[in-house]
């Protein structure tokens, strides 16, 4: 229940973050950079962008509820351009009446920014950049009076109208209305569609549809289906290795706690616990994947280049590629696990049940691996479940350094392109995986400890 709430809130946070991004997802969809409307037929471009924005649902409000000042109108999403929309919002928060300002912004968009004739006028395009009209509302009046001289007769009346509207907006600027809270309710919003679909092509997450990725115009699922097995394999390998080695070395270190050589190993563990993973990864690359020193491992990727011809994904040929990433992912959890098991073993070896086992004349290996280990290893299950999410964030770093096409890299790429659907899908999947991890650890607890019984979940 708790983690479900976390997922819901996390997705809401991500959605509202996407609003503040400087990258417009529709531009990414069209494969364009940041420059808006400067090349080609502006009106056509605008129509195309408007159509795509409607098709992808980015023109809708983000969430069901919005708490905002009374000056901010409920139908603000009629403004198409996202940066203009946030400028409008800022103006409303400063006390301008949104009711008066909204038609101004819509006409401004239509008549100035996406006008066929104005788009070809170089001076006006320079003025758009110069006055910074996407950033500063205070510059709008100066900008409009500036371009009024430059435009032809056709547009002159329109722009004159705009200036008039701006004047009324300034006249009706309120001194107190922006301090009155209002709550807007939007039944049809982006989050709703993401959750339940819109009845047409979007089916919603409850039917397993994560939507489309704006990066390659394919389904999010097709992107993730490629990346997920890679990250899962990396995580499983590193958890397996760190569990195996951590338990063994922890038991041994705890058993020989009074020997002097263990203190050296303990300080080594402390170093291992502290060393930053990105530095270790870089060092490994420099010294073990470099023809100058030891060219034992390939520097990055998942398979030899010629193997990509036959299949993507992972095969037997990718084993040398996995060594360094798995090492970098595993060493930290190895240090954590060893320290934990060592401490537990140290306590267990001084306890009475070990004393009684010794008194019964059991052999030392039997005491350590049968009697002590059973009690020591129980908390390991919980810790392993809590390591899983940490491994996921670790995979972002490791996959970037070793150029592995997994979930971490996918997340980084998606957030760079403001591809919210992919980010949300990755968050949801990782949350589901960590919930599964806790569930499995609970079940394993009952298997290994007969004193614990699951009554209800």
């Amino acid at each position: 229940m708790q983690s479900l709430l976390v997922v819901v809130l996390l997705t809401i946070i991500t959605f509202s973050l996407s609003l503040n991004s400087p990258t417009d997802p529709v531009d990414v969809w069209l494969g364009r950079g940041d420059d808006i409307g400067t090349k080609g037929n502006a009106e056509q471009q605008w129509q195309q962008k408007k159509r795509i924005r409607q098709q992808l649902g980015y023109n809708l409000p983000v969430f069901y509820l919005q708490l905002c000042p009374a000056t901010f109108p409920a139908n603000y999403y009629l403004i198409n351009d996202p940066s203009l929309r946030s400028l409008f919002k800022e103006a409303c928060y400063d006390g301008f009446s949104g009711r008066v300002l909204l038609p101004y912004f819509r006409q401004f968009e239509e008549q100035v920014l996406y006008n066929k004739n104005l788009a070809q006028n170089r001076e006006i395009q320079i003025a758009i950049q110069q006055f910074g009209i996407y950033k500063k509302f205070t510059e709008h009046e100066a900008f409009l009076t500036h371009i009024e001289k430059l435009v032809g007769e056709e547009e002159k009346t329109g722009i004159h109208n705009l200036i008039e509207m701006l004047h009324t907006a300034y006249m009706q600027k309120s001194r107190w209305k922006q301090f009155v809270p209002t709550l807007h309710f939007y039944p049809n919003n982006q989050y709703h569609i993401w959750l339940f679909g819109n009845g047409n092509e979007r089916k919603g997450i409850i039917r397993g549809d994560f939507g489309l990725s704006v990066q390659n115009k394919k389904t999010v699922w097709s992107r993730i289906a490629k990346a997920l097995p890679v990250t899962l394999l990396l995580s499983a390998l590193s958890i397996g290795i760190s569990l195996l080695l951590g338990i063994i070395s922890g038991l041994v270190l705890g058993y020989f706690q009074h020997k002097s050589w263990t203190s050296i190993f303990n300080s080594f563990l402390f170093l291992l616990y502290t060393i930053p993973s990105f530095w270790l990864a870089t060092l490994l690359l420099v010294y073990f994947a470099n023809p100058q020193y030891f060219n034992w491992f390939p520097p990055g990727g998942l398979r030899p280049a010629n193997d990509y011809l036959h299949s993507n994904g992972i095969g037997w040929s990718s084993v040398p590629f996995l060594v360094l990433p798995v090492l970098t992912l595993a060493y930290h959890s190895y240090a954590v696990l060893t320290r934990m098991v060592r401490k537990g073993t140290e306590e267990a070896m001084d306890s009475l049940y070990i004393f009684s086992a010794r008194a019964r004349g059991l052999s030392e290996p039997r005491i350590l691996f049968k009697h002590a280990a059973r009690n020591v290893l129980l908390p390991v299950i919980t810790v392993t479940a809590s390591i899983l999410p940490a491994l996921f964030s670790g995979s972002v770093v490791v996959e970037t350094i070793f150029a592995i096409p997994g979930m971490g890299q996918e997340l980084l790429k998606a957030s760079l392109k403001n591809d919210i659907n992919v980010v949300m899908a990755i968050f949801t999947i990782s949350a589901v995986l960590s919930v599964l991890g806790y569930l499995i650890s609970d079940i394993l607890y009952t298997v290994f400890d007969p004193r614990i019984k699951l009554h209800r979940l």
Partner: protein
Amino acid sequence: MIKRLLRTTPLGFRLSVYFVFSLIIVALCAPYLANDVPYYIRYNNHKYYPLFSGQKVLVLDNGTKVSCDYKNLAAVEGLYALYPPVPFSPLKTHIGSADYKMPGSQNGERTHWLGTNQLGEDTLARMIHGTRVSIQVGLISMLIALVLGLVLGSLAGYFGNQGITMQRLHFLLLLMSIIPAYFYAFVIRKYVIKRAFEQSNELALVQVFISLLVFVLIILLFWWLGKLLLSIKKIKGGKLMHLPLDNMIGRLVEFVDGLPVLVLLIVVSVIIKPGIYLLILLIGFTAWISIARYTRAEVLKIRRSDYMHACKLMGMSHWRIIFNHLLPNAMGPALVAFTFGVASAILAESSLSFLGIGIPDDVVTWGKVLADGRDHFKAWWLVWSPGLAIFLLLLAVNTIGQYLRKNTHSAETLR
């Protein structure tokens, strides 16, 4: 006292404390340690102090204007200048030093003690200025977390679920107050904070704290309003109930604990490109949970002690008990959590800047220097100097934390 404390502690702890403090001093003095503006210039019996006075352009007495940096000043004849120990600025590229010059290589009369990167930026100067970011992120973010954690943890522990009783109407009013508090603190001030972030970082921090203050004040206002309303005899407030403060804060802790913080940090820093102060705030607002947990557990223990009963019997106010008698005794475990938190905050920041996200281009960090080394493996100095610096700083902080944990008995039993 400090001298004796340092003498009786183990060597590793002492070395760590010295190392961390020397790095703090380096961070504070960074512009005076690595800069290509001289401390002192003597020219025709005139003396100038450009680094301290901050003037960018020097007007010499014969009327010529010289901009105050090494390249231009070296061209003036008969001019004596005293430079900082590292006469390079971190973000300036040097034409003669481009393409990964080795450590110890010369640029005119100056020496690159730690080499350069591809653009010809001096590594040592970048390392010295990068110290600032690491120390700032580590200390400021965890100070925010410490304040939050101590306040919330001690409130949860001191009042528990039964410490505050109120009538139902009063509770409802308090619950409702969250909406106006959020509105007046964060919604209408959204653009004020945003503009402050564009102007300067210090201003932005001040604005965020004003917002937090407004939030708390409005909730307090509703609390007093409720009291005032219920003191009128005609208004009936319903049954008496306990304010489940401990449960509420416990839920909040669980929620923040469930967040995948580093992943969220990555996504936030990629999507909205914050400066380092927003990063500091984000780390601070997610790192308080362990401090709150430790403090709560410690307060629960202290609450049953005799001197707490004595305080209550003497009729002290809750405020005075918490701040004068409870917190000073419950700080120990929180300090342990604080120290480990500093280490993880530094690690998070350097991971982010290593990946090249979250930190603006005009800020130098250790992670960025290391990222330069990743592009060119032959430049071992770019791999080793920042990596070793981060590693040693983390090692020192963790050593201090471990020593504190060993000597704070309650913290050791906790984990």
